[in-house]
């Protein structure tokens, strides 16, 4: 049974939590007994979901598995478990390569196996919030170092030499005298070695790493280029059928009645099944109300759905108009709101005269539009247990949600994770996986739920639309003396709890409440707004609209002062310090789930990326030459990023982005090629947010149906060149999945202003 206490475990999103959660990551060290059991089990047996082949000299394969992330077979095969979801960040490569580097494995021969969803075994698997490397850099090193220590000790014993004279390289233990032995030849001896103490285990010197800090190609590179990589919809089970669902067109709509005669008459259609939906609020992990058509193949299911006749009770959201709500939200920002941060006295600063610059900023709902629309496969067995194959960012939550929907224990849900054809936060939500489970149970067959593109755009968990108003006061000396930021947007929490009408502390902690500049009077306020559709999180979450408003405004303030925006921000940082916002916040500062003493908000590092991007992009010269360059800096997910974007116009009027420069301080760079790829991609992702994409609702219904209505940039619109300048650092590594997006948005807007002479106050800007 699903226990209510399980609900308190989930959902857990460190970036939204107001209090920093305990970092639960650790190397899972099995007891001595378990560890020996694994060894014996592995003889032609089943370990960690991997079917090992017997190929040892006597037809017997021995496996050494000192922890759940790693095993070494007597045939020299090193297998590393990827326990976090691969959605394009390269994490399936970057974490295993840390293990391999500490171990001293031959990377070209390492096999990577995707873990199933099991947080009790593997620790946190919620692939979200750009924290995989941050959380697992040390545990992965320890996992590799533990095995290295034991193999070295085994070899030293065999050779009767001191372990300190031995090291590992390329899958062998090597003695300083020249003797070598392959890992595979040590597995039986290594099992007899005492497990080293995890606290005192010796990690390698950074300078001796062969993989960490280098450009390492992704593990799935060739499989993707040959079409062999397996995504969600690529799973096929014997006897599987395909479901396509007609879902409530308006949040909260209920099926009054439906007629399935015509749908069942479509060749290939086998069943029509109603799905009971969650209503209002729709929840973050529930299926929507709908009617599913199940068929022998996808096309028959799509045709069957077209033939369905459904009468809906549309409910209270049928009158909802997103444009009207946005106008109301904007109007609310001119009134006093709920104060969330206060320093000094903004109103007094305002009354002392000088100049007040007051601007408003609007941003729309955005859909994730992953290239792979949601799809999931479920097989509910006769005994009630369930097996899932799905492209999920959050396997444990999906298990819980399926268990709740089927009224079974989550231990009875086996969760297999495929590659994700894009995630960006969409595939954190298990709603589509719950659908597959419910339909498999009803049909008594394995079922694949296939979302079409219109399903994806109509039934997403959208990035919230937002209205902001910023008042900047320049005193009589021209100094920025007051900053009043009003922000209003429907909260993510409102999707599960209709009473949440203000942005949460967590959402404000994403680039709004942590305004880092030395302004003596600061007041940050929020206003009420309700959710009439499902709100979720999209790559960098509310940093998107906060960075847009704040950094566009700062550019305008610099202009009003008649100073260079780079110089202006450097001066506004004043002396280097760690920010705590103590005594100023009315709620908690989440710091992306990390304590401030461990990951301080450090203005020296912010200054570092500003200096770097200005120098690397030749900012001063570009400005002097009259180039249309825009600049912005924004810290998010504990990574410091500054950005310079250049724009021009082609003869045909088309906006061109010839050059982008990023300066990045993410601490230690683990896989530098994947860091660069995240920034190249982040610039392109953010270009869509600025120039092409918007979701609108009328009569409660989303108006965009496919990539003609909801546009994302195509190759001609992409930045031509993106240069990434990494700050060399030995600070703890932080994530890079989301941080490229926020500063790029205002940098592009500020560049477009140089080109057109018009400031951008509303996204998307239709060039």
């Amino acid at each position, binding site marked *: 049974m699903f226990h209510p206490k399980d609900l308190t475990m989930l959902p857990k999103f460190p970036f939204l939590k107001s209090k920093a959660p305990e970092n639960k990551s650790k190397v899972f060290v099995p007891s001595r007994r378990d560890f020996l059991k694994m060894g014996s089990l592995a003889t032609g047996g089943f370990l960690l979901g991997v079917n090992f082949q017997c190929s040892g000299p006597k037809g017997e394969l021995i496996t050494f598995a000192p922890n759940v992330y790693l095993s070494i077979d007597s045939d020299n095969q090193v297998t590393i478990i990827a326990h976090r979801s*691969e*959605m*394009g960040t*390269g994490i399936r490569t970057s974490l295993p390569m840390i293990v391999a580097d500490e171990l001293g494995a031959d990377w070209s021969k390492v096999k990577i196996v995707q873990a199933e969803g099991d947080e009790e075994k593997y620790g946190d698997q919620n692939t979200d919030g750009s924290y995989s490397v941050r959380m697992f850099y040390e545990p992965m090193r320890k996992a590799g170092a533990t095995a290295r220590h034991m193999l070295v000790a085994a070899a030293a014993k065999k050779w009767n030499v001191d372990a300190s004279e031995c090291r590992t390289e390329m899958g062998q233990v090597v003695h300083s005298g020249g003797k070598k032995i392959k890992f595979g030849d040590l597995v039986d001896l290594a099992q007899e070695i005492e497990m080293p103490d995890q606290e005192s285990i010796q990690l390698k010197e950074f300078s001796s790493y062969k993989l960490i800090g280098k450009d390492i*190609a*992704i593990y*799935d*590179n*060739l499989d*993707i*280029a*040959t*079409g*062999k*990589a*397996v*995504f969600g*919809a*690529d799973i*096929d089970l014997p006897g599987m059928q*395909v479901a396509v669902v007609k879902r409530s067109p308006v949040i909260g709509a209920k099926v009054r009645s439906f007629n399935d005669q015509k749908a069942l008459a479509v*060749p*290939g259609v086998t069943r029509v099944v109603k799905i009971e939906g969650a209503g209002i609020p729709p929840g973050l992990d529930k299926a929507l109300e709908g009617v599913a058509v199940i068929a022998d*193949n*996808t*096309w*028959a299911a*799509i*045709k069957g759905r077209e033939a369905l006749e459904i009468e809906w009770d549309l409910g209270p959201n049928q009158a909802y108009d997103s444009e009207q709500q946005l106008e109301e939200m904007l109007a609310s920002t001119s009134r006093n709101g709920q104060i969330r941060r206060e320093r000094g006295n903004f109103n007094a600063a305002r009354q002392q005269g000088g100049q007040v610059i007051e601007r408003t900023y609007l941003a729309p709902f955005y859909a994730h*539009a*992953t*290239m*792979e*629309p949601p799809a999931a496969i479920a097989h509910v067995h006769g005994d009630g247990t369930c097996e899932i194959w799905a492209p999920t960012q959050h396997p444990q939550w999906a298990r819980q949600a399926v268990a709740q929907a089927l009224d079974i224990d989550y231990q009875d849900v086996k969760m297999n994770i495929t*590659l*994700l*054809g*894009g*995630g960006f936060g969409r595939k954190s939500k298990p709603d589509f996986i719950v659908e597959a489970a419910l339909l498999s149970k009803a049909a008594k067959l394995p079922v694949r739920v296939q979302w*079409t*593109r219109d399903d994806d755009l109509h039934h997403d968990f959208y990035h919230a639309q937002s209205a902001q108003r910023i008042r900047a006061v320049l005193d009589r000396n021209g100094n920025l003396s007051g900053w009043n930021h009003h922000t209003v947007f429907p909260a993510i929490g409102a999707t599960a709890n209709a009473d949440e009408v203000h942005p949460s502390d967590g959402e404000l902690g994403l680039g709004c409440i942590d305004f880092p500049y030395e302004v003596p009077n600061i007041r940050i306020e929020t206003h009420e707004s309700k959710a009439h559709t499902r709100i979720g999180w999209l790559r960098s979450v509310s940093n998107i609209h906060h960075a847009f408003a704040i950094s566009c405004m700062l550019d305008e303030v610099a202009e009003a002062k008649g100073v260079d925006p780079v110089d202006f921000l450097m001066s506004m940082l004043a002396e280097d310090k760690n920010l705590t916002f103590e005594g100023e916040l009315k709620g908690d500062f989440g710091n992306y789930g990390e304590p401030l003493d461990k990951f301080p908000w450090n203005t020296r590092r912010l200054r570092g990326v500003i200096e770097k991007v200005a120098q690397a992009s030749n900012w001063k010269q570009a400005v002097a030459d009259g180039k249309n360059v825009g600049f912005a800096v924004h810290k998010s997910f504990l990574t410091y990023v500054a950005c310079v974007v250049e724009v021009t116009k082609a003869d045909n009027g088309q906006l061109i982005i010839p050059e982008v420069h990023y300066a990045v301080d993410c601490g230690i760079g683990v896989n530098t*090629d994947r860091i660069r*790829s*995240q920034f*190249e*991609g*982040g610039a*392109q*992702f953010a270009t869509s947010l600025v120039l092409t994409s918007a979701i609108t609702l009328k009569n409660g219904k989303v108006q965009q149906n*496919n*990539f*003609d209505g909801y546009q*994302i940039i*195509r*190759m*001609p619109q*992409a*930045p*031509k*060149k993106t240069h990434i300048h990494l700050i060399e650092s030995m600070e703890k590594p932080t994530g890079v999945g989301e941080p490229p997006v926020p500063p790029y948005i205002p940098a592009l807007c500020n560049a477009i202003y140089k080109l057109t002479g018009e400031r951008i106050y509303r996204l998307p800007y239709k060039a």
Partner: protein
Amino acid sequence: MEKFTLIINGNKQSVEVQPDMPLLWVLRDILDLKGAKYGCGQGLCGSCTVLLDDVAIRSCAYPVSEVGDQKITTIEGLSNEGKHPVQKAWVEHVVPQCGYCQTGQIMSAAALLKRNPKPSEEEIESAMAGNLCRCGTYNRIKEAILTASKSY
């Protein structure tokens, strides 16, 4: 249901399907060739791109009844081992992020280089404009095509 004989990756294969079934679903659901991906169903994103007699088409919006005796090439037939110059260039530049759109991108690039072995950057942009990538691999796709063009 109607019977169609298709020439796929050099082999003749017969299927019995509805004549309006798009080629994509014939490949994926009937013939178990999963390399071509579903992205939009309307020929707007290019994830489903395959070749018909060396021309890139969007298989999600191409009824099987229209194929006739045109030769179909999917990613599996381009080179199953990744030996095609476009695939090699893709691997060399580590183009993919999530990878979902990449088989379609590769097929479009292969068609482009077949008809224009030395494309300019502008010609690449224009030829590839029908293939969306949400992760943002456009820079590396362009570089990979320029690299691959050296083998043509």
